């Protein structure tokens, strides 16, 4: 017993008294003293302390035990299927949690078949078809004598059956048998089928005012501007369309989107020919807020990897890259003479980037922490001036001037020109009308949408309507500012009289079949 040893330490007095069994009273320690239990000295353990320490132990130890118990019943007889047997193991053991494009643990990506075989930073082939011994993947997952394997990191090793399955699959030639039908594939001849109307994230008039580009599922729908009929379906690879914006001359449509968690894509369509001119893959998640430079020479996008990029819509070449934001970038716009890019982000800020140098110039919004509640979601530029209209989580549309003219003071918000009365909830869409005299904003507040048109000069609300069917995610004025088109949660496009807010037309831009879409 520690106590006896202790009292025996300085034995000068050579006294040993009868030391009956004893216990220590429960110590009611502050939690901060917990590490004492781990490395320190506590002769006996009280109930409370014990519990806490065991909780820790629980967290550390129960994981291996529980998972080890989950022995799969997969058979390793016969031909091993990559799709049915191997891939589920990689997912189930969460290999793909870290070795995915967005994280690239060890520079190794297992979510694509080619890179799964190729391997990572070690330079060794992960999978050598027909030769398990040369396949580094197996070396990594095979446990040593102590039962521990290199991978999965900090988690129990794969079971013998799982390793055998992978080994056999490699020995049999490491074939990819993923069926082509794994995901629903759509093209112009096999357009998407809708079980229900999709949420409308983007509705925009063409510059000539004749058409509406509406973001659908796997496609952009071109409708007649008055809602009288579908003109065309631009079906593409990306399942989710975040924005569809016409070039200044109306000939092209820039579509940003992608498939969440898999890839981002910027599409450039030739509107007349209904042809996909360019598909630029960017990153591993959807792309936001495409915008055209007024000179038509650039298309900018915001990315969920917090970057801002711009591309040449002719060649697809990246012409601008900036990492100034520290959260998802949700919308972009250019200055009047195309020399600056302005972006808004979930990080609450609006940033100014110089196009030529790709340099971050300024935070246009206040940099004071907490000055803005939540992130900024949407931005539009005045048709003729470098003034920027934005909306976001605080519900209040605001206009900022692009260029700072006052000396910076900590905590100022000097670029703010006007703040409009707040809409309920979060503002998802904002737009100037053709001469900049009016602005429109759409918001979403727990299942209810609202559209407002304000006088841009004095901030007065010209009209507002409530949309009880759901939040509004996008607003746009038509060419002569007579109509405001909005879209949102319920999937319907609504056309309002821009002067008084009367509903001119409401239509569902897709045909809802209700038929079951095959699940993978």
């Amino acid at each position: 017993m520690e106590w006896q040893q202790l009292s025996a330490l300085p034995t000068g007095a050579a006294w040993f008294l009868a030391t009956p069994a004893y216990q220590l009273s429960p110590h009611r320690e502050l939690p901060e003293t917990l590490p004492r239990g781990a490395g320190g000295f506590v002769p006996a353990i009280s109930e409370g302390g014990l519990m806490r320490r065991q909780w820790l132990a629980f967290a550390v130890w129960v994981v291996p035990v529980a998972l080890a118990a989950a022995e799969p019943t997969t058979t390793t007889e016969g031909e091993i299927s990559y799709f049915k047997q191997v891939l589920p193991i990689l997912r189930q053991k969460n290999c793909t949690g870290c070795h995915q494009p967005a994280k690239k643990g060890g520079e190794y990506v297992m979510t694509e078949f080619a890179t799964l075989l190729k391997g990572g930073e070690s330079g060794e082939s992960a999978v050598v078809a027909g030769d398990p011994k040369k396949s580094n993947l197996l070396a990594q997952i095979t446990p040593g004598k102590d039962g521990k394997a290199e991978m999965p990191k900090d988690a129990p090793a794969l079971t013998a059956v799982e390793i055998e399955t992978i080994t056999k699959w490699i020995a049999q030639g490491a074939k990819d048998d993923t069926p082509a039908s794994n995901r629903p594939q759509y093209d112009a001849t096999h357009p998407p089928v809708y079980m229900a109307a999709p949420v409308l994230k983007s509705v925009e008039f063409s510059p000539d005012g004749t058409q509406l580009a509406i973001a659908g599922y796997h496609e952009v729908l071109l409708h007649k501007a008055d809602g009288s009929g579908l003109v065309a379906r631009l079906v593409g690879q990306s399942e989710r369309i975040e924005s569809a914006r016409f070039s200044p001359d109306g000939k092209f449509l820039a579509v940003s989107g992608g498939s969440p968690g898999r890839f981002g894509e910027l599409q450039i369509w030739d509107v007349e020919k209904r042809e996909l001119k360019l598909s630029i893959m960017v990153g591993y998640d959807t792309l936001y807020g495409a915008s055209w430079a007024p000179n038509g020479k650039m298309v900018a996008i915001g990315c969920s990897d917090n970057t801002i990029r711009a591309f040449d819509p002719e060649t697809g070449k990246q012409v601008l890259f900036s990492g100034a934001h520290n959260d998802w970038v949700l919308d972009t716009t250019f200055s009047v003479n195309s020399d600056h890019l302005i972006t808004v982000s979930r990080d609450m800020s609006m940033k100014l980037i110089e196009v030529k140098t790709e340099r971050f110039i300024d935070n246009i919004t206040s940099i004071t922490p907490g000055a803005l509640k939540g992130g900024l979601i949407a931005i539009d530029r005045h048709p003729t001036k470098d003034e920027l209209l934005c909306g976001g989580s605080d519900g209040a549309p605001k206009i900022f001037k692009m260029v700072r003219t006052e000396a910076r003071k900590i905590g100022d918000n000097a670029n703010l020109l006007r703040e409009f009365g707040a809409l309920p909830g979060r503002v998802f869409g904002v737009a100037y009308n053709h001469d900049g005299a009016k602005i429109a904003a759409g918001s979403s507040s727990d299942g209810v949408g609202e559209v407002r048109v304000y006088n841009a000069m004095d901030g007065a609300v010209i009209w507002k309507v409530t949309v009880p069917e759901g939040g509004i995610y996008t607003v746009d004025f038509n060419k002569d500012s007579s109509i405001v088109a909005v879209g949102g949660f319920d999937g319907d496009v609504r056309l309002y009289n821009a002067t008084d807010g009367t509903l001119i037309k409401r239509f569902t831009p897709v045909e809802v079949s209700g038929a079951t879409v095959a699940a993978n």
Partner: protein
Amino acid sequence: MKLNQPFCFLCWVTALVLTGLVLTVRGEEPVKETLPAGLKVVAIEAKPATVELSHKFDYRQLLISGKLESGETVDLTRMAQASSPGSAVSVSNDGLLRAKADGSEEITFSYGGHSAKAAAKVSGMTQPHAVSFVRDVQPALSRMGCNAGTCHGAKDGKAGFKLSLRGYDALYDHRAFTDDIGGRRFNRAAPDQSLMLLKATGSIPHVGGVRTNVGEPYYELVRDWINQGVKLDLKAPRVTKIDVLPFNPVVPLPGMKQQITVIATYADGLVRDVTREAFIESGNIEIIEANTSGVLTTLRRGEAPVLVRYEGAYAATTIVCMGDRTGFAWQPQLVQNYIDPLVDKKLQAVKILPSGLCSDEEFVRRVYLDLTGLPPTAGQVREFLQAPGESRAKREALVDQLIGSREYVEHWTNKWADMLQVNRKFLGEEGAAALRSWIKERVATNQPYDQFARDVITASGSNMENPPAAYWKVNRDPAGAMENTTHLFLAVRFNCNKCHDHPFERWTQDQYYQLAQFFAQVGRKEDPTFTGQKVGGSAVEGAVPLVEVMYDNGSGDVKHDRTGQVVPASFPYTHADQSPATAPRREQLAHWITSKDNQYFAKSYVNRLWGYLFGVGIIEPIDDIRAGNPPTNPELLDALTKDFIASGFDAQHILRTICKSRTYQLSVAANKWNDDDTINYSHAIPRRLPAEALYDAIYMATGATEKLPGVPAGFRAAQLLDGGASVPFLDDFGKPVRETACECERSSGMVLGPILKLINGPTVADALADPSSELNQLVANQPDDTKLIEEVFVRFLARKPSASELKLGVEALQAAATEQAKAAAALAEYEKQLPAKQAAWEASLGKPVVWQPLDPTEMKSSAAAAFAKQDDKSIVVTGNLAKDLYTIVAKTDLKGITGIKLEALSDAALAAGGPGRAQNGNFVVSEFKAAIDGNAVELTGPSADFSQEGWHVSGAIDGNDETGWAISAEFGKNHEATFETKADAAGGTITFTISQQYVDGKHCLGKFRLSVTDGARPLTKAKLPALVASALAVPQGERTPDQAATIAAHYKSLDAEHARLSAEVQKSAEQVKSARAVGVQDLAWALINNPAFLFNR
């Protein structure tokens, strides 16, 4: 500084626990379970006997139990064989019934030849089931772990996606799933492509892994919800309660399992099985392990609470694992008051046999320490032990005597001073002193506890005039004051729910702010008497006035953290005894808290008192009442609570009652049937003395005078105002800093550092060393060793020593005398060896170096100086002073000359006393040579008692006139240079030449002498004192007794072992003088460092 951030320990722990739980979701039981050998089932039963399932997600967990021969019940759910089911339901091998199709069927469960039936009826499978976000989806998301604290429920969410912790905020979560980023996470057009499903199934990369699979109930549920339009039904009826079945089960043997089922009742009357979605957590995983399907595995004998929570509802059940108690037989126990039968009832139920009563010696120390914070004095011990009468009556009389005594008041004042934070940091010294004396007065008069609490809660005015107002000075912000007050007077922790609904309790975030409103309307202004005086203050917090006046200002509200709105003031639970809503908020609050109808107020205080006296509360920790921490003996706690209320909240009455119970008076010694019990009061549990008690006890037992910083000598640690003056000993042993009301501030553990400090530190050493201590007086006044030892034991341990302890003690007292005799004998023994050692030493010395001065026969100066020979054979030089070469001739018959010495001697007649003739008394011997009978003698090994820097004596024999021996600035003193001959030289006529060529022609010797020796080489070896050397020069047989003695004394002084032994003798001689004092101090030291002293047993 006070902690501004509420520390949410539970958050942290739960996060860890959840990680475990979440990852165990799909753990299947690989091994078929069997009953332990020897258990014979005589009947089985299925519960419920009828099951109705009304939609495709409906299920029911069945409980199949068996009755044993012994009458005990065992769980057979996973062992009973189900008849193959028909088309209506499926039955899993762990007894889960799921709906398959409309219809009815009967399932038969069989085990060991017995069978039981359950009838199932399924309906609603043909109609679509409307999925509710609140009622169906949220629990499924919680079970999948999406909103766990380690996942998207974390403060900042994960990977850009945040949910409310454990889904307490349905609105927020619905927004996150359906509205964030414009509805990114669901896909109504193609529900299976919804991001939330693709992630949950791991179909696309998900750091959180695979949470469900396509086709599994949770997947289908969420998919149906998306398909039905991701609706939010905030008004959906909520869970009003959950029931856990079976309640408080007893499992016969460790390793056996028990299925529990959790049934939720909703506000609209709906009752449904939620076993698979409920969170089931063991309160002690040493004893019980819980899994996600509601199976509890017992690990060893004992009992443990199991906390079940589901959608904001909480329930706890206590599982007892009986273990093998073969041979146990209850024996009727002595009953001293109502406490005892209630304790016995529990003991009997869990088959524990209590220990017997403690001895009177144990009792007297225990009760003194518990009631007065001090051990009894030796006198008090004797008085109690020797008092006539029967033990029980004596004990009860002592309890009555101690309760209310001066020390009692001091001790219990301290407890409240801890909890009310009597701390000069917040109150200044004056304010702290005022509050302490206010408390003291209340303790002394035994003010009813409810009045005491009311006085604190409603205190107004200046905190100098009305000291309890200081409570509101210390607790300044409404939220903090609310947390502190509920913790203090209700033992309820209202802090985790500041940021989210409480994870372990039913308290919601809304309730936090509703209750905080009662604390929001307290005004504080400076007391004009103390204008301008401040207390506290730091870089981030401004100082506040030293004394403040508290008042109800009738306005002010706190805002809800989440909504930013002001919520109405309201109590988290109500009782019949309400005050008018028009009263000031603090009045209403005080009325609500201190009412006898408040379910926690009286109960929490009796539990504290019980915990103080037993070391373990009936609810433990004693200030943490919650559903997941049930009392170990609810009936006992209820009885005490009732008694407390009936007595008019009389704390002394409760203390008296407890101390007079048999339960309190049990021995610390355990028996076979209770040695593993720490929670049922079957034997006393040793408790380490609190810091102040330990300090005071050491000084009391030694009878030394306490000298604490900042207070007069003799002031006890228990009397210190606060922790203002730091006493390392008290800090080490856990004296609370008084910055919160938490009992956890006082530590009672044992850690290495403080123990070592106790053993070696100054506190004990000072107390023992105090020459005026009673202990040291006792040594002087008690001549009888036996009685002395007995007295010491009584002083320190309140008992007489055992026979063996006494023997050891007496021996220790006499140890010093024995030591001295031993040391003297050792010295004498050693001295016998001395002559031999001395002879060996002498032999090792060789021929002693004895210098023979030479009598010059010729003296010549090349510069015509004059020489005058003196009686001591030295030569004085006078006359012409210039560069010179002295030539001195003498005769010697010494055989084997080994050395020559040139002495430069001082003389008053010389300038500056000489020895040189230069103005400053210096000289330079440039070259020194000797020749015998015309043959040069080669000189080596030059050595001088002093050489001037740059003029080393070696320069005198290096053949170079530029160098030489000089002695600046050691003028006026004798100096000598010695040289060894290279080879032993035979005597004859010896001619010395002393060349002195220093440039100024003045550095010549003024007085000098020449000597030779035949002593053993090297001449520089051992410089023996001249007297010793000359004595040694005399051959052994011819020495006078004086000479012999001189040599012997000199040798002894060189012998280290002799010196050591002599010192031992010297030391032990001194020790003998104080032998008993030292013995007693050693004994006292050992006693202090003994559990019997450190612990209250």
